[in-house]
Every structure is written in C-alpha cells, then in structure tokens.
C-alpha cells in the first residue's frame, strides 16, 4: 500500500517562493497592460503637442500632488506592516494595513472630486463641451480618464486584497512564519503606487 506516498516536490505544498514568483510574473503582465497605454499616450502626445499642453492646464496639480504623497506614504505603511508581522507584532501589522486602506480611500475620494469637476465642465467623452474641443484635447481627456480610471480600479483591487489579508492575519493563517500573502499584497500595492508615479508627471506636470 502506498496511499501515504507523497512527492517531496508536490504542487500542493505551501511554497512561499513559488507564490512570490507568481506575484512578480503577474506584476510584469500588469506593467505591460499599462505599457500599451503609455505607448498610445506617447504617440499621441508627439502628434498633438500643443493640444496636450493646453488640456493639461485644466488638471489640478495640487490634488494630484496630494494624492501622490498619500500613495507614497501608503506604500511605506504596507512595507512597515510586513516588517511588523515578520517581527511578530500582529496588532501593529494590522493597524498599518488599515492605515494603508485608509490612504487608498483618501486617494479615491480626492480622485472623485477631481473627476467630478471634469464632469461639471463637460469634459467626459461624449459630453457636449468635450465634443466641441479640438481633436488633440479630446484625446488627452480620453487618455486621462482611461488611464487614471484603470489605475483607480487597481487601487480598489489592491485595497480589497489588503482587506482579505487583514482577515487572514487576524485568524492566524497569515502569520510570522507564513507571511507571503501579505508580502504579495504589498508588492501589488507598490505596483499601484509605481504606476501612479508615472501617471502623475505625464498628465499633471509636463508643461
């Protein structure tokens, strides 16, 4: 009887390195997903330089700047929460993760007001004012909504991911010895941060 025989290299074993490798590979695909958009942005910025410049004055650098600070800080808190868990301080780790989620919410609220102002000015694709703009400016706003919208979606996914991890830390299935899931949520959060770091100058700062 060999019922009990299990291979040492079983796919059903817990393997922290495998899950981390899987996460990194997934992040590559995310980068390429946004990479396609960056490519389109680059081409159209080159073709419509004046219009892109004109349209970019419409964005609120202050709101974008505050959001950048918020995201950067939240990247720090999630990194700290990993260290906290590694050192065995479960409570601190959970608190830091909640702070990260609060930052994500703050980011989204500011984003909401930013988008809301654009809607009021009729700048969303399909609105009347939008349709009267020159082609280059329409492209700019379109890419602005597409890229920051997709990014905001990633902020939401990242926030939900961290909430799942909080639950798992609290019930002990993610712990001092087995923290790769928390680490992965951190990696994902850093990606969200990183993409914003490119979006911010591309849309708000280049003048």
């Amino acid at each position: 009887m060999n019922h009990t025989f299990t291979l040492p290299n079983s796919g059903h074993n817990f393997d922290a390195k495998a899950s981390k490798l899987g996460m990194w590979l997934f992040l590559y695909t995310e980068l390429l997903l946004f990479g396609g958009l960056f490519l389109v942005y680059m081409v159209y910025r080159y073709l419509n330089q004046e219009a892109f410049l004109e349209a970019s004055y419409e964005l609120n650098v202050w709101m974008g700047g505050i959001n950048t600070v918020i995201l950067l800080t939240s990247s720090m808190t999630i990194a700290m929460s990993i260290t906290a868990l590694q050192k065995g301080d479960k409570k601190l780790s959970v608190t830091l993760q909640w702070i990260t989620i609060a930052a994500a919410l703050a980011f989204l609220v500011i984003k909401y007001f930013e988008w809301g102002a654009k809607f009021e000015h009729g700048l969303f694709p399909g609105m009347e004012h939008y349709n009267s703009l020159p082609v280059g400016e329409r492209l700019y706003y379109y890419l602005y909504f597409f890229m920051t919208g997709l990014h905001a979606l990633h902020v939401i996914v990242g926030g939900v991911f961290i909430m799942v991890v909080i639950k798992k830390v609290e019930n002990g299935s993610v712990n001092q010895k087995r923290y790769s899931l928390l680490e992965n949520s951190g990696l994902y959060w850093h990606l969200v941060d990183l993409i914003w770091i490119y979006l911010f100058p591309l849309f708000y700062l280049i003048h």
Partner: protein
Amino acid sequence: MTAATTVEQPNFFQAKRGLFSWIFTLDHKRIGLLYLYSVGSFFLVGLTLGLLMRLELLNPGKDIMEAQTYNQVFTLHGVIMIFLFIIPSIPAVFGNFFLPLMIGTDDVAFPRLNLFSWWLYVLGALFALSTLVFGDGPADTGWTFYAPYSVNTTTNVSLSVMAALVLGFSSILTGLNFIVTIHRLRTPGMGFNQMPLFAWSLYATSWIQLLATPVIGITLLMIFAERTFGVGLFDPSIGGDPILYQHMFWIYSHPAVYIMALPAMGIVSELIPTFAQRTIFGYKAIAYSSMAIAFIGYFVWGHHMFTSGMSGPAAVIFSILTFMVAIPTAIKVFNWVATLYKGSIVIEIPLLFALAFIFNFLIGGLTGLVLGALAADVHVHDTYFVVGHFHYVMFGGTGFAFMGAMHYWFPKIWGKMYNKLWAGIAFAFVFIGFNVLYFPMFILGIMGMPRRYYDYLPEFHPLNMISTYGSWILAAGIVIMIVNLIVSKRKGEKAAANPWNGITLEWQTSSPPPLHNFDKMPELPEGGPYNYPNAKNA
C-alpha cells in the same frame, strides 16, 4: 486485477466520480482533459466553418452564402481557431496533463489558478458564441479587428473583443502557472538541462503568453471603449491613427504565432527521440533555440504591415529580424533530422505525424521567408499565398503535432491502445487532404487571388475546385481519427504502462496515472532525459 499484485491505487478517473468532480477539480490531469474536450469541440466548430467557406469557393459567384455571411463566417472561423483552439491547444491540454508528469511532480504550482484559467476559457467561449445570437450577428472584420472598420461596423465586435480579452487572461494565467511550476517543482536532481524538451518549449511559450498577451488585452479594451464612447483612438475620422492599432495588435499577435508553434516543436522533440530510440541530437541547441525564437519573435511584428505605411529603414529592420527567426527554427529541424540518422526507427503513428510536421512546417516556414522579404511581400500580401502559408504553419505544423501528441499519449491518458490500422488510414487521409487543400493556395496567391472574398475570377476556378476537394478528404480523415480514438478509448486493447519504450518520467507511472501521479519516487535516466540505454550508438 489479480490478488497477487499489490493493491492498486485507483487511477485519476476512478478517484472521484460525477460532473462536479470534473468541473471543480484541482487535478491537472482532469483540467487537461476538460481543455481537451472544450478545445476539441471548438476545433470541430471551426473546421465546419472552414468547410463551409471552401464549399462557397467551389465555384465562382455565390454558391451557398452571401458576401456578408461569408465575411462573418471567416471571422468566426479565425476567432475560434486562433483564440479557442490553437493558442490553448497544446499548452492547455498536453501541457497541463503532461508537464507535471514529465518533471516528476503531482500538480502545477497553483492548482486553483489552473482551474480558474479553464473557467475563464469557458467564459470567453460563451462571449464568442453569444455573438451569434445578439444584434447583427458575429463580427465581419476578420480575426484581426482592424480599425477603423471594427469601430464602425454594426456587427458584434464589442462582444468578440471581450471574448478575446477574457481568453487572453486565461492564457496568461496558464503561462504564469507553468513558469512557476517549472522553476519550483522539478523532481530533485532534474536541472533545467535535464528537463524534457517539451517542458523547455512550454517554458519559452509561457514567457510569450505572459509578456505579450497584456498588450492585446489593453488594445482590445481600447477598441471596446472607442465603440462605446466614440473617441478617436484608432479611427482617423475622429482623430485616431489606424496604423497605431495595427502596431499594437501585432505586438501581441505575432509573438502569439510562437505561442502556437513552440509547443508543437516541443512535441516533435519528444516524438523523434522516442521512436528513433536514441539520444536527441543537440539537446541544448533545441532547448535554447526555443528561447531564441521566443525572444526574437517579439521584434518582428512590423512584417505584417509592410504595405500599410512604414518607413523604409523600419521595414528593412523588421525584414532582417524576420529572417533571423528562421535560424533557430532551422537549428531545430536539422537536429531532429540528425536524431533520426542511424536511430533504431520504429514507424508508429505519432512518428508519422512528427515527420509530416517537419515536411509541412518546412513548406510553411520557407514560404514565410518569401512573405518576410520586402519586395516579394508587396506582390503576395493579402493573397491566398498568405492563407496557404499560415495554414501550413498552424495546421500543418501545430495541428499535426497536436494529433501526433494525441496518439503518442493516448495509451498514457486512457490506458488503452488505439486501433493502429484505422489510425494509419486517418493519417493518410489527413496528410493528403491537407496538402491538396492548401498547396493550391500558394499558386492561387502567386496568380494574384486576393483573400477574404466570397467570389473570384474565372481563371482561379480549377485550383479552387482542387482545394475544396482537399477539404473533404481532410475532413474525412479527421472524422475517421476521432471515431477511431473514441472507439479505442471504449473498446481498445489494454495498453502497457510504457508501450513506446519512452524514458521520460511520464512513462514510469501506471496508465492511466494514479491521482497523485507517482506511487514511488520517479527515477531520472542516467545522463540526460533522452539517453536510451540500449541504443546501438549510445
């Protein structure tokens, strides 16, 4: 089962029963079979559509369908064959089933993600099929969804691109799973250079799946958004650039050709040493050439666009890079042929498919060089020459490798042997039918017959008739093959665990394999994965 043997483990078919034990299974072997049944069904749908197209082209003028119907049929044929059949075919079916067995483990690294990939595949398939019933019917753009037409047509382009998007994610997750599996789960003692070559080819394929597919995902999302919000990303009448769409489409879709071809080459690299019963010639050359093809394959997309507006220097660079892909491909072919030389060749059906692969792929590959050459491409671009070329590579190559793998691993999957006589007859029909169907297309293309029309000039009539007759021979062969395999699965003779005397690890376990693949530690062959101990020239 006699009492004298040790109590046998139930095999993976017997371990659990019922529909739910299949569609929610985490077992890589069952997921592989789920893919086999779903991919196989769509192959038959695509095949039927192809037969209908050939029937329409039997005579000039309208035979059985209107021009618009023909446009929708060839689009659906393309979408189904590319996204629902070829891309998932070998990796998702045989990769899932055999990669863990061949590297001596009991599952892929992320079994749940694997099941999720299959579910995404089903969802994507439902999207693709739903185009049939809603609105103006399936898209009529060709599988390339070229803008601006894809933005303006009233047919169901939005649903079709969503289907391709979802199927893309399924493909990404399978690739991700395989890369991690290969890195983390090889049996102790198996380095990268002791891996079977099929695993190597899957490794190269997975990287392409991972790094190219997101680009098409975002591109198709942009088409979707453009149709929904009417923003001119790609439509020039509202400020977009259609050439940009073509670039972004081919940035994925050319590497995707290697997603389809590389696993097939991996299959051939398994079949040839097994049936020549000798060490593969140039193991490392074959392994690394897969990686080389994957790498160079990223930088050749522009050769689809020589006639659509590209600067001279860019065209020359893309052309040179295209020729460079031929080098690692030729390295593989020479190594396969050199492996056969002085081997103890056993002629079995899978070997016939492997040899047919080399024959077809050689024609497909060399005509690809004609298309990659700038001057020649201007002449044959968008003619039947192109149709002939990619069917020789995709069907003659990947399709034949798929059928070869099906026969090669049939006894391992079901523990039965197929009827060899009928398998041989089916092979003859398929091989002859295939060549009769597609070879005339090269001549038609050189003569100037454009592709994607339901009608043609009278001087193209004879060759089109021959081609359509070929499609019937081919279809007959495929029907014989499928019937033979189904009958053999039910009533075939019981097969030995290792009927081909193979030495890769999947042959060390029983057939069908037990739930956890191995009842004892698999033993690596001394001196490399193809080091046949009794080979005359060892």
